[in-house]
């Protein structure tokens, strides 16, 4: 996790909030550093994490996690981390016959699939253990990322349904958190993606939006992060709090600074 980002979000692993949906969004840049942050954050907070990793392999997250101070292999062995490796599983789903329904069963379906097997997988992974195992803090579902599901034949409505079911189970019933990444296609006019993004934005408690700079590539400032705190359930017209920072990604951490205050410029 990045200590500076914790500071900005006013949170620490000990005081992690519960029952929240956090939406990570990236536009014209790669927001995966936020996924690494939350993964290591919740592992350090002693939460039980179910990570649906559809984009990269386990070793990728593991190596970056080690730079951030967590070991995914250890967490997986202890039962703290349940890892669904999308890329590897897709090969299994396609080329080997499965007896019981696989979480990525929708890959085999010709028409728009539904994500019910995936939801069952998540629910099974995060349900509280009966025996006296180490009591984890709260369950967390992490998805990287949801936009790729649209490329795999699942409709935007089906993805929204999946998140709805997950929220009902993970956030409300189990008092856990959900963190998910969605790409913002910007001017590529991906309508399905926009539906998904807008739908999730309205349900989220916290939105972190990583954008590339409007002026283009810069070596010292990699992008801009907009943080938006929301209260989706309350109907009061209170203004949501929002902050904007610029950031630079380094080898093992990310530094944040106010707009225009990059150390390279000062």
């Amino acid at each position, binding site marked *: 996790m990045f200590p500076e980002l914790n500071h900005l979000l006013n949170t620490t692993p000990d005081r992690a909030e519960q029952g929240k949906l956090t939406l990570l969004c990236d536009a014209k840049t*790669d927001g*995966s*550093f936020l996924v*690494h942050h939350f993964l290591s954050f919740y592992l350090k907070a002693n939460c039980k994490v179910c990570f649906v990793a559809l984009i*990269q*392999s386990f*070793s*990728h997250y593991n*190596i*970056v996690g080690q*730079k951030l101070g967590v070991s995914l292999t250890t967490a997986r062995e202890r039962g703290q981390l349940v890892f669904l490796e*999308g*890329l*590897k*599983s*897709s*090969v299994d789903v*396609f080329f080997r016959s499965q007896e019981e329904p696989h979480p990525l069963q929708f*890959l085999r379906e010709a028409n728009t699939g539904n994500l019910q097997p995936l939801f069952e997988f998540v629910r099974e992974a995060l349900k509280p253990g009966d025996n006296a195992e180490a009591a984890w803090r709260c369950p967390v579902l992490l998805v990287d990322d949801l*936009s*790729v599901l*649209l*490329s*795999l*034949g699942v409709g935007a409505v089906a993805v929204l349904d999946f998140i709805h079911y997950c929220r009902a189970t993970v956030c409300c019933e189990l008092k856990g958190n959900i963190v998910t990444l969605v*790409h913002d*296609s910007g*001017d*590529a*006019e*991906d*309508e*399905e*993606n926009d539906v998904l993004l807008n739908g999730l934005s309205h349900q989220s408690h916290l939105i972190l939006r990583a954008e590339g700079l409007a002026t*283009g*590539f810069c*070596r010292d400032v*990699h992008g801009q992060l907009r943080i938006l705190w929301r209260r989706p359930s309350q109907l009061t017209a209170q203004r949501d709090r929002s902050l904007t920072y610029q950031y630079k*990604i*380094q*080898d*093992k951490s*990310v530094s944040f600074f106010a707009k225009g205050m990059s150390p390279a410029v000062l």
Partner: protein
Amino acid sequence: MAAAATSCGPRAGAPGCVVAAAGKDSVTSFQRRGPRASGPDGGCRRLASIAGTRPSVRNGQLLVSTGLPALDQLLGGGLAVGTLLLIEEDKYNIYSPLLFKYFLAEGIINGHTLLVASAKEDPAEILQELPAPLLNDNCKKEVDEDVCSHKTPESNIKMKIAWRYQLLPKMEKKEKNVLRIGIQNLGSPLWGDDICCTENCNNSQSLTKFLYVLRGLLRTSLSACIITVPTHLIQNKAVIARVTNLSDTVVGLESFIGSERETNPLYQEYHGLIHVRQIPRLNNLIGDVSDVKDLAFKLRRKLFTIERLHLPPDLSDTVSRSGKQDLAEPTKLLGPGCGVTAGGKKHLDF
């Protein structure tokens, strides 16, 4: 559409099945120099002993060469094994087949296994037309010997040591080898897809699903893949965005043919622009992004070069650069105050 799988050892004299591309010291930097291939550090010795690969200096990721050292440099040393390189084709598909062929040729010279798929040309014909290696005359003889006798000295030695076994059939030791996959013109109507035909296409999901599962296969094997896609024909921008997100490295070619830049004297040094649209972040928070964003390529007689786009200094009278060639109009007399005669054709005269 046809696919051809070949496994070419580095043997010289095979007609048409020729070898790889250019290098600074005129030999591809990934070529094995002898029977003992040594990695840069002992820890990676086992991995580096796979022919034609080397670990990245940044993060130890295993890299293969794309066949073009200039492109390797742009990508941070080479293409990582297990990843997908997407080439956005130039408009008339003149330069992207070259990158495709360099990739395959590099595979042959390293002894990699190849899998070539193309709907437009017969893959066997593609393999016949691969570029020859660019070698100095000095090292040519040495490399030829190396290439010719690559297997024989070893096998002779083996025979000497175990002469009584020479009557038994030789068992080939199955070594780990890299598989190079090349798919040409994916998404074009020749493959039966309508992605390039209409905006509301039905086949976009089969293409994106294919790319996803292909990447899954690449990640779980020792292989690298190059795919060329005619993105200039795809009318639905959302499909291009999805295809980009599903690839690891994306490089776009923009040739000057047919555009006004072809005759523009400012760009006469180059044949087109090359855009590095995406670099993967593998095992790292950040990828190897080059600082130079304006890159142009030129196909010389023997070499495909990529360099920083240099526009010559503008020496015209007008402030804005319009690129017009007739800058040599004699300037008018500016008046007695200037003192210098304003005749002559040089536009530097005040």
